């Protein structure tokens, strides 16, 4: 009965429900677990970085401290005089190189004017003038000074440790150059993932170690970063600060882990691109996304096909149900006919019996002889009787036929009064034997209704049969009234029977609900009526008082201007048929 769009809608609803129900937990789990995992993983990665930086931080500091301490020992033990002697200086230098590897590139003594008076090392730097060098100025202030890395006179990156000595009222400076390469190795070896690397930078933004790749472009940014750190008051040794910013030179989000070394003069920077640092996490995230996507596609496809299949099944079963309904109505009709059969059989056998007796009587008279008495007349009377009884039989069979035809659901314009009368006539015999007196009060002003005549017949037949049953022992009165009410045709079928108990009142329209003994009623009558009247757009209400009677009221919409097939069928013909029961 329903349109295809209804099933499409049904399929859509089913599909979205399936998708929602299957997706929601999947999505939620992925989200929650993913979030928890990423938080835990990030913490772990950052902690690892911090540890790495701190460790190297300490390494660098202790390396520098160690070198400074060694030079100080040398300064304490040697004295200016021994350093002044270049041969002696070379011995000391050689000893240092031997014992400490090639860390100490050279060793030199500078006088207060900044002139290197003694030198031991690979470069010819004796008499070099350091008066304007930054470190020379600084060492005079600080006693011990470790310089930044610079190119200096030799044009090679290096840094020096200088110690101020005093001898004979003169200031001397013992300086040594530290091997930049060896120092570089301290941080160069920090190499994590693809982009993770460390370098040391001074406050001015000069690299103190060689970064693994060319980073000159990043210097302004790094300067900015370092300056930003100056603001932090908690910048003390042993603290690392993590900043995540977009590196302007690479355009990638990068993690910067910074830590001050050499009393805050230098800063160790460890940097790694976020995507690289969290590559495992990203991989896991990608995997989850892929699974989610594939799962989603799977669920959607499954939902699509399953819902379509289900909708098709529902459609088929609805179709079957509709067909079943039709069959049930047909069966209900047969049951009604069955109930009628008793009355009809008696009804038809009565005239037949009369005809048989009349025929017998004629035979009797013929045996006697036609000439006797007024036998001829008597035979004629008997023949007339047979004819009239035959007509009666014909009426009965026609009446039955008009009802027992197959149900035709075609909607037609139906004159209700005629149909009601026809059904009353059909039931009259039954009513007579049940001592039920049927009274009709049919209003002339009622409009036609648009309905299937055969279905309406069934409605009235069932209601009248029920009413007669309700008055079974003892009989009673059945009042059938038709009238117009607000453009609606009202038909009331009221009996004076046993009534319906309140408990049953709500169930009487349920299929298979019956109070009749097994085998006597199908329990379909009222439910079929309900279905038919509902389909017409009408309604049915029931008022019942126990032991006083029941009143079924049908509200049938009038045909009005609705264009319906004009009934050319048996209804008017039946009305004019002379019926006698």
């Amino acid at each position: 009965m329903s349109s295809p769009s209804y099933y499409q809608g049904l399929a859509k609803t089913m599909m979205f429900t399936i998708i929602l129900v299957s997706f929601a937990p999947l999505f939620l789990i992925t989200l929650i677990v993913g979030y928890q995992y990423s938080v835990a993983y990030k913490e772990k990665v950052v902690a690892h970085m911090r540890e790495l930086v701190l460790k190297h931080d300490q390494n660098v500091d202790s390396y520098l401290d160690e070198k400074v301490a060694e030079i100080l020992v040398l300064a304490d033990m040697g004295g200016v005089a021994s350093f002044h002697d270049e041969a002696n200086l070379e011995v000391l230098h050689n000893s240092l190189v031997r014992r400490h590897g090639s860390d100490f590139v050279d060793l030199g003594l500078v006088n207060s004017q900044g002139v290197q008076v003694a030198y031991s090392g690979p470069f010819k730097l004796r008499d070099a003038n350091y008066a304007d060098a930054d470190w020379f100025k600084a060492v005079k202030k600080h006693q011990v000074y470790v310089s930044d890395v610079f190119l200096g006179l030799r044009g090679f990156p290096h840094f020096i440790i200088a110690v101020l000595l005093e001898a004979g009222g003169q200031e001397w400076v013992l300086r040594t150059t530290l091997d930049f390469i060896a120092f570089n190795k301290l941080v160069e070896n920090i190499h994590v993932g693809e982009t993770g690397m460390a370098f040391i930078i001074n406050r001015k933004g000069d690299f103190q170690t060689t970064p693994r790749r060319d980073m000159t472009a990043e210097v302004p940014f790094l300067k900015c970063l370092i300056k930003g750190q100056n603001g932090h008051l908690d910048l003390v040794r042993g603290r690392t600060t993590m900043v995540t910013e977009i590196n302007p030179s690479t355009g990638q989000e990068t993690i910067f882990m910074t830590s001050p070394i050499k009393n805050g003069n230098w800063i160790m920077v460890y940097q790694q691109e976020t995507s690289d640092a969290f590559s495992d996490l990203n991989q896991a995230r990608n995997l989850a996304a892929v699974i989610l996507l594939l799962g989603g596609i799977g669920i959607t496809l499954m939902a699509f096909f399953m819902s379509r299949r289900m909708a098709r099944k529902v459609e088929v079963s609805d179709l079957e149900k509709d067909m079943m309904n039709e069959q049930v109505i047909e069966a209900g009709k047969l049951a009604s006919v069955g109930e009628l059969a008793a009355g009809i059989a008696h009804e038809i056998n009565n005239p037949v019996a009369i005809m048989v007796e009349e025929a017998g009587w004629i035979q009797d008279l013929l045996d006697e002889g036609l000439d006797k008495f007024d036998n001829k007349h008597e035979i004629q009377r008997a023949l007339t009787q047979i004819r009239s009884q035959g007509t009666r039989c014909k009426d009965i069979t026609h009446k039955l036929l008009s009802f027992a035809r197959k149900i035709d659901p075609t909607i037609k314009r139906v004159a209700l009064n005629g149909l009601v009368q026809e059904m009353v006539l059909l039931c009259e015999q039954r009513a007579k034997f049940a001592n039920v007196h049927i009274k009709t009060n049919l209003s002339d002003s009622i409009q036609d209704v648009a309905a299937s005549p055969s279905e309406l017949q069934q409605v009235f037949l069932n209601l009248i049969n029920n009413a007669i049953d309700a008055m079974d022992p003892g009989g009673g009165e059945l009042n059938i009234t038709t009238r117009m009410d607000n453009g609606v045709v009202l038909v009331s079928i009221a009996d004076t029977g046993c009534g319906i108990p309140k408990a049953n009142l709500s169930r009487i329209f349920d299929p298979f609900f019956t109070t009749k003994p097994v085998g006597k009623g199908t329990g379909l009558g009222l439910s079929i009526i309900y279905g038919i009247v509902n389909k017409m757009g009408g309604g049915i209400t029931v008022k019942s008082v126990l032991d006083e009677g029941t009143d079924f009221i049908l509200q049938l919409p009038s045909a009005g201007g609705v264009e319906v097939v004009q009934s050319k069928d048996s209804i008017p013909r039946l009305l004019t048929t002379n019926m006698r029961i």
Partner: protein
Amino acid sequence: MISIKVLLVDDEQNFLCTLNKRLSKRGMIVEVAGSGEEALEKLESFVADVVLLDVKMGGMDGLTALYLIKQKWPLVEVMMLTGHARVEVALRGLELGAFDYLMKPVDFKDLLYKLEDASMRKAYQEEKILARKRNKQKIEQSPTVY
């Protein structure tokens, strides 16, 4: 042929009329009644041998009439007549003491035989009762024999 006294009960006047004529022609004494109530009334004055009773009638139905007849006149034989066969009605009728059960339309010869049988049974029953009465009287009258 013994003149059997028959009461025909049916709500079909035409049927009663014709059957009346045919049975009368065969020497039976026939009375007709259009309903159960009328039948009971008729029986008060008309001593019938057999009542031919339609089961389905308006007003008092056949089975009730049968019951009342049997209550009041147990010796009267009743034949049930019906338009359609319903076993439970037939059984109920026989339980209530009906002689037989016939379907409309009835074969006339059958009807005649059955009516004869019924009247014969009634006569036999009456004979038996009469004989018993006579025996009783004899016994009552003969205590002096001993």
